[in-house]
Structures are given as C-alpha cells and as structure tokens.
C-alpha cells in the first residue's frame, strides 16, 4: 500500500520486527508524534527480516525498521531482488548481546558496563570470554556448537564472527552458524536446539533472565555506537513522496527527543512496547526501557543522523564478501544509501 491521503492524513504502513529498537516508530504512533506531522501510520509486525525486506521492495510496506546493512545489501542485489533502498535515519545504536547457553558460559564474567558516556564502552576486553570459549571448544570436542544470528546481512552476524575471531575460532569450521528470527532465540536456546546466539534486545536479557544462558559479550564492546537499525525506504518511494519522508523523519526525531527528556518517558515507552501488537510479554522482565545501561548500551534517544562513515565496520564485511566473488564495494553506492541529505533537509525545515 503506497502512501495515500485520507481525511487530511497521509496513511502509511511501516514494518517492524519485535525488538527494543523498534521503539521510535511505536512511540511516534502511541505518543501522537506521527499524527502531529499529519501522518496516520499503521505498524505491521513481521515474522522474518527477509519477509519485511521483500514486502518493502514490492511496495506492500512504505517503510520499515531495518537491520543497518540490509538497505545496502538490497541495493546491491545480494539479498532478495535487487532494489535501490535508502537508510535516511538511524533508529538505534548498539543493543546486541552475545549469549551462550549455561553449559558453555558457566563461570564467564559479564561484559563490563563501561562508562555511561559510551566513550569507553568496556573496561573489559571482549577477547577474554572469546578465548575462554575457544579453550572450552578444544577441551570438549564433539559436534560443533550451533550459534544463531538473525540474518546474513546483519551486525549480529558480523559481530558474532568478529568475536569468534578474537578467540581464534574459525566461524565456518569450528561452529555452525544458523539464522533464526529474534523472537525465536530464547526458546531455541531453552530447547537446546542452539548453543548460543547474537541478537538485539530484549531477547538476550530475556534468555539470561529465564536462566537459560549468560550474556558473554555485547555488540557495543566490539563496535561502540554503531548504527544497529535504520529506517528503510525504497529510493523510488523516497522520490515519489519527499514531503512524507520529511514528515516521517521529523516525527521519529521528535519521538527520540521525547524519550530522552525524562526517565518517566522511558517507563511510559516500555509500557507502550508491552502492548500486544508490539513486543507484548517479551518486555515483561524490564521495568523501564533500558537505554544506555551496560553491557548493552542501547541508544535510541538521539544521534539519528545517518552517515557512510558510521557504516564502516559493516561495509568492510560486505566489501569482503563482494571481493570473494571478484567485485568490490563502490564507495559512492555506500554514500548514497546512508546519505544524511534527507535527514538534514527534514530537520532543517523544522528549525526554520
């Protein structure tokens, strides 16, 4: 359903996957920030990243909460049908946890929370637990442990690989990597179908809360303040609806400002996320929306402006994959995909 004007409001549908960093669109809807910009937004909960991707490409969704590397992978045609896609706003930074089952993580220390300003996100070196895991792998023998992440083109995939590499573990030989959607991680770990996973919140802390595993590393330790989720729209949609895109960006920025204004707002946001159409019972173990606290360091209340420089760690992984097939990542394509022009234009108008 492409954007249409009904009773003075622009009607849109945005897709999301149940995760804490889907907070901004949920807050913008529940708190009236979309309505204030003349938008009537329906939020469509999707069961899989690939389905969200295909619906966006086919125009069944106007925009979506997306894994940061996915718009680039779509534009390059290496994930699903080739489709020029843009990431005009960062919906969340950090937020990933690496969880190992109790059997594999017994005695491993929690990654250190680090300093609140995020400058030194970990006093503790993430390699310590990685080397410990490598030792346990060597001692135990038997079948390779199965580790899950959420999508081939995700920070979770790349961070899991980098963490394993810190321990000297070959991700293609010594472990088995599988893909599961975030809401399935905790139950798969509990059922013993996987031995660990890398996922966005609240699914890591939920598994730990239920006693099925321990958080042994965080994405913030590896890539401090990296863009984790972005707003994704197709280039064709952005070209057809520049005003609506501007309104969308301003509404999400207003939601982020509101969220950062007080801890009471973080509590209210948690209650909205706990509504059945969104995250439902998955946030039952959280008292408030956990922002900036260790070891996760989730950030959804500011710093929404995208940039190609911010994407450097994941762009390196995509470049490597392309080089393996004799190509390379064109920096101009990266710059177009994560260009701040839409963000700057929308927020500049706001100030004027």
């Amino acid at each position, binding site marked *: 359903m492409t954007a249409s004007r009904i009773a003075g409001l622009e009607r849109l549908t945005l897709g999301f996957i149940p995760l804490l960093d889907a907070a901004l669109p949920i807050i913008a809807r529940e708190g009236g920030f979309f309505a204030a910009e003349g938008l009537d937004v329906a939020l469509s909960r999707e*069961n*899989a*990243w*690939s*389905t969200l991707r*295909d*619906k966006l490409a*086919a125009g*069944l969704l106007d925009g979506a909460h997306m894994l940061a590397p996915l718009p680039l992978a779509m534009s390059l045609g290496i*994930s*699903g*049908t080739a489709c020029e896609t843009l990431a005009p706003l960062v919906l969340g930074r950090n937020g990933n946890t690496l969880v190992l089952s109790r059997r594999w993580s017994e005695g491993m220390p929690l990654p250190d929370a680090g300093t609140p300003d995020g400058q030194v996100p970990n006093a503790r070196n993430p390699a310590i637990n990685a080397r410990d895991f490598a030792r346990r792998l060597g001692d135990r023998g038997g079948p390779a442990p199965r580790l899950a992440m*959420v*999508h*081939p083109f995700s920070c979770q995939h790349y961070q899991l690989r980098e963490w394993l590499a810190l321990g000297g573990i070959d991700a*293609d030989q010594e472990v088995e*990597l*599988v*893909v*599961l*959607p975030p*809401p*399935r991680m905790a139950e798969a770990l509990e*059922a013993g*179908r996987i031995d660990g996973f890398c996922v966005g919140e609240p699914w890591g802390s939920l598994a730990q809360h239920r006693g099925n595993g321990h958080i042994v590393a965080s994405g913030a330790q590896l890539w401090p303040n990296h863009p984790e989720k972005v707003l994704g729209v197709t280039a064709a949609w952005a070209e057809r609806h520049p005003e609506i895109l501007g309104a969308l960006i301003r509404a999400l920025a207003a939601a982020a400002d509101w969220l950062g204004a007080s801890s009471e707002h973080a509590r209210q946001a948690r209650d909205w996320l706990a509504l059945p159409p969104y995250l439902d019972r998955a946030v039952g173990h959280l008292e408030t929306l956990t922002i900036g606290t260790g070891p996760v360091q989730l950030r959804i209340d500011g710093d929404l402006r995208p940039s190609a420089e911010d994407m450097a760690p994941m762009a390196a992984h995509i470049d490597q994959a392309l080089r393996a097939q004799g190509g390379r990542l064109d920096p101009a394509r990266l710059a177009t995909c994560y260009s701040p022009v839409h963000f700057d234009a929308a927020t500049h108008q706001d100030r004027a």
Partner: protein
Amino acid sequence: MPQPLKILLVDDEIVRAAMVEEALGQEGHEVVCRLQSPASLNEMVARHAPDVVIIDMESPDRDTLDSMSLLNRENPRPVVFFADQHQPDTMQAALEAGVSAYVVDGLVPSRVKAILEVAIARFASFQSMRTELDKARGQLADRKRIERAKGLLMKHQDCDEEQAYRMLRKLAMDRGQRIGEVAANVIDILERLEKGL
C-alpha cells in the same frame, strides 16, 4: 514428461497445506509436508534434499531458508529465493497470496513458475475461504451481541424488544457504525453501570 521435482512444503495451516500438496501431487511432483515441526529447517532440507521449498510468506522459517545458500557453503543443495526478474506479475501475485518459493540454484525458471502458480492459486482460494468463514463468524457474534444489548436496553430503558432494536439501529445510523459495534458499546456501558463502576 519432465522429471518430477521434490517439493518441501512449509505451512502451519493444515487445510491449506493439504490443498497445495494435493494439487502439486496431481502435477506429478513429490511433496514432503512440514507442519509445525519444531525441528530445525536446516535438518529438514538436509534430510529431504528438496528441489523447491514452498513456504508461507508469514513463516518465521523464511529467514533460515533465505540464508542457506550464503551460510552453508558446503551444503550440496543451496536454496535461493525465487524472484524471476522477467515475471514481476508472478512475484506480486505470490506476495499478495502470501506464498514464496526457494529453489535449488540452476533450476529452470519456467518449471519453478508453474509450481509457484499452483501454490498461489491454492493459497488465494484458501484466503477467500477464510475470509468467508471470518465473515460468517463475525455475523454470528454480532447477532449474539445484539440480543444481549437489546436485553440490557429493555431492562434499563423499560422498553420492549422492538423499541430496543430501533434504538440500536438509530445509534448505528447516527454514528455511521455497524449495529454489531454499537451493540458492543451499549453492552460495555450498561454492564459497567450494573457493576456500579
């Protein structure tokens, strides 16, 4: 006659899966069904070695399939999302019917398209069956609500059944709502009143 293909069907809807299985079986294909299995889809694919996987678009298992060719470099049967650039209409129809296909790389697109079209047709007719059923269920629920609302109105407004029904109908017309919705509102308000809230 081309070789029959081995098809893995991933669908939690028992009736729909049976419809698709039946139709593809008639086309001479071998269909392996998977319903609500908690086992890993990776293992299902390894065990059955399908040529085509037909999967409900809304299944969370889609991500697992989507990654197989990228992650399992040594898997003898990598699967790729079937999206024929020359057939955008088929893709759109598949998305709208809520069905998608993953195929072994190198399979002739026309053969996959034929299978996908059979699945699309069955998914679409299942969808319209379910819409009809939901409508019938809604009407039944509405009728029960209207009866309950009439009863409450008769008690609280001291009127007869005919007057109570006219009241509901007028409310519905004034608000531009369905009479079933108005009945639900009336029940809500009058029951709260009775409980003294």
